[in-house]
């Protein structure tokens, strides 16, 4: 939801980033205010997942130019774990399996780490158990998820639910959902979307990175951005997503190239 006088949570200016010496993000601008839901769409290779990983601090990506302010603070001065504790959350496209670590043990560890940072009370195993079971209802997860190893042997849909469960526990200011809809069947998609919607408040913001429009049937974005070649080439409302679904991405690309050409001829 767009609110009057909402504060800027994330401010990306002129961001350039590369991986293995190949430039992926090229002069990206992006602003997120509290209460908003953004969708970043684009074709494979447009740089949307890279953007998500750069925000979270993945070590394989090198930021070569630009700034990102998170609640006014220089994001790149923070290590990945400090970003998480400050309230930035990334739901992974491919959540990592950690066999040998119990899910409930892991969830409590991350929850308490973040609680401690925020000066809030940590929970002991019993208290946490009650707390997490409540949150799991939101995602229609069976309690035996807690007894299994983190993501180990989970189906694609179960892994994604476990990601959103972590989001529910960590209560981030900005949650970036990277291709959360991939690998979900229609029921799982609905459940995950419901969960995300319930977690959306006027104080936080959600950024959905997706290839397809279908998740946006359930989580209605305030803004839809189209990314191509490492930058945002078009921004619109929720109608843009539907248009992309029916017309594809080509026309946006052509439009943007046309506009660039026109801009160049004006300056020339």
């Amino acid at each position, binding site marked *: 939801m767009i609110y009057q006088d909402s504060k800027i949570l994330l401010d990306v200016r002129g961001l350039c980033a590369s991986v293995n010496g190949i430039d992926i993000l090229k002069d990206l601008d992006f602003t997120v205010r509290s209460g908003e839901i953004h969708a970043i769409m684009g074709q494979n290779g447009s740089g949307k997942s890279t953007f998500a990983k750069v925000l*979270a*601090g*993945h*070590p*394989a990506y090198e930021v070569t130019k630009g700034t990102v302010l998170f609640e006014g603070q220089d994001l790149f001065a923070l*290590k*990945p*774990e400090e*970003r*998480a*504790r400050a309230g930035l*959350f*990334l739901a*992974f496209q491919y*959540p*990592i399996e*950690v*066999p*040998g*670590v119990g899910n409930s043990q*892991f969830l409590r*560890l*991350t929850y308490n*780490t*973040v609680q401690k*940072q925020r000066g809030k009370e940590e929970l002991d195993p019993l208290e946490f158990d009650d707390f997490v079971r409540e949150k799991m209802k939101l995602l229609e997860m069976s309690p035996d998820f807690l007894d299994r*190893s983190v993501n180990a042997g989970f189906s694609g849909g179960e892994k994604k639910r476990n990601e959103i469960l*972590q989001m529910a526990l*960590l209560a981030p200011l900005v949650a970036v959902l990277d291709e959360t809809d991939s690998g979900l069947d229609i029921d799982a998609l609905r459940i995950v979307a419901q969960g995300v919607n319930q977690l959306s408040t006027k104080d936080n913001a959600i950024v959905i990175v997706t290839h397809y429009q279908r998740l946006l049937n359930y989580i209605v974005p305030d803004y839809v951005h189209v990314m191509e070649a490492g930058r945002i080439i078009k921004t619109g409302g929720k109608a843009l997503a539907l248009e992309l679904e029916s017309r594809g991405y080509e026309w946006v690309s052509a439009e943007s190239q046309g506009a660039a050409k026109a801009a160049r001829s004006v300056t020339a």
Partner: protein
Amino acid sequence: MSETTTSIPIIAGSYLASLLAGQPQLAASPLAWLNALRRDALERAGVLTLPTTRDEEWRFTDISLLTKMSFAPAQSATHLEAADVAHFFIEEATSRLVFVDGIYAPALSTAGIGIGADSGVVVSNLSAAIAAHASRIEPYLGRHAAFDNDAFAAQNTAFLHDAAVVLVPRDVAVEAPVHLLFIATQKDVVSTPRCLVVAEAGSAVTVIEDYVVLYQPRWQEEPHFTNAVTEIALADNARVNHVRVQREGSQAFHIANCAVSLGRASNYSSVSVALGARISRYNLKVVQEAEGATCTLDGLTLISGRQLADTHTLIDHAQPHGSSHQLHKCIVGGSAHAVFNGKVMVRKGAQRTDAQQSNRNLLLTGKAHIDTKPQLEIFASDVKCTHGATVGQLDSEEVFYLQSRGLTEAAARKLLTYAFGAEVIDRIPVASLKRQLEQTVLEQTTSLP
């Protein structure tokens, strides 16, 4: 026959000769077959030499350090009160056999307690069991662990005077695990522990084979030598869970052979954990002697400092429709050296065999070392066999995932190292032992490298 086993000449000056020389004179058993077994083994022990790195099976494992030291059997039993060793006891195990420096300790053992007297289950030391149950023991003892070409098995068998014996009769399921506890208390001592587990048709049992050390404080860093042999026989449809924990002293030598024979549609599951010893070697051989047998062989080696731990396994699919699953992991810190040699043999005619083997290794330092050699030998045409080995450091994607959830890089690495080991520990079907070993793995992985 009245001759004693010591009447066989031994090659003078050999290392085995020196070990054998110190053995107390064994009185001849009234059982001719047992005397014959010992005599044959002693003969082999007299001929065989200790392996060196020139032997293919010992290529990576240099035991010359062992041959530079001299060991003698314990001359007398160390007297221990139950309170001294209670911390080794496993709460779920209602029956327990304890051997101290290789000598049976009846006062610390709870043989057969908790097992219905009329069920016919025997949990006892060999000396006590053999009079009443010789006919149940003879077909198995010394029949599975070959000593023809193994100097250590030969030495163990030559001096087979006592053993931990577990006999489970037909269709009896023993609920509580049986704990076979071997405690080393004296330096410079060689002991030759022996275990025999016989699971008759349709029976089920869980056996914990546990090697621990209780040194006097001043002997903390002193060596001892354990040379163990275990035989496990599963008849048709029997189920055996075998947990093996090797947590010997940091200067100990531990050499062990375990031979398992599987009957039709039987199921053998083993988790072996190697934590201790300066040099250790575990040979586990499982033979599927009849159709449709299943075995699971999981292992964890967790070593650091200057330890060397070698695990050699052989799964012999001798008959059709068998399956085997194996996950062996090594976590190696310091300048330690781990060896894994996992051979899976599928014999001609063993059609529809399903064999999966995986060996994963984690090196925590630049000086840590691993030699891994998975081997598949397939002589049947219609089989499904997979194997793989990985050696490496922690996966950076996993580290990043945990960091993105608020854990520091150091905490993430520790958790992942712990998890790497815990995945195997998790498979131990005895809750209190699992918790105890999880704690050990946690302590070791947080103090490593």
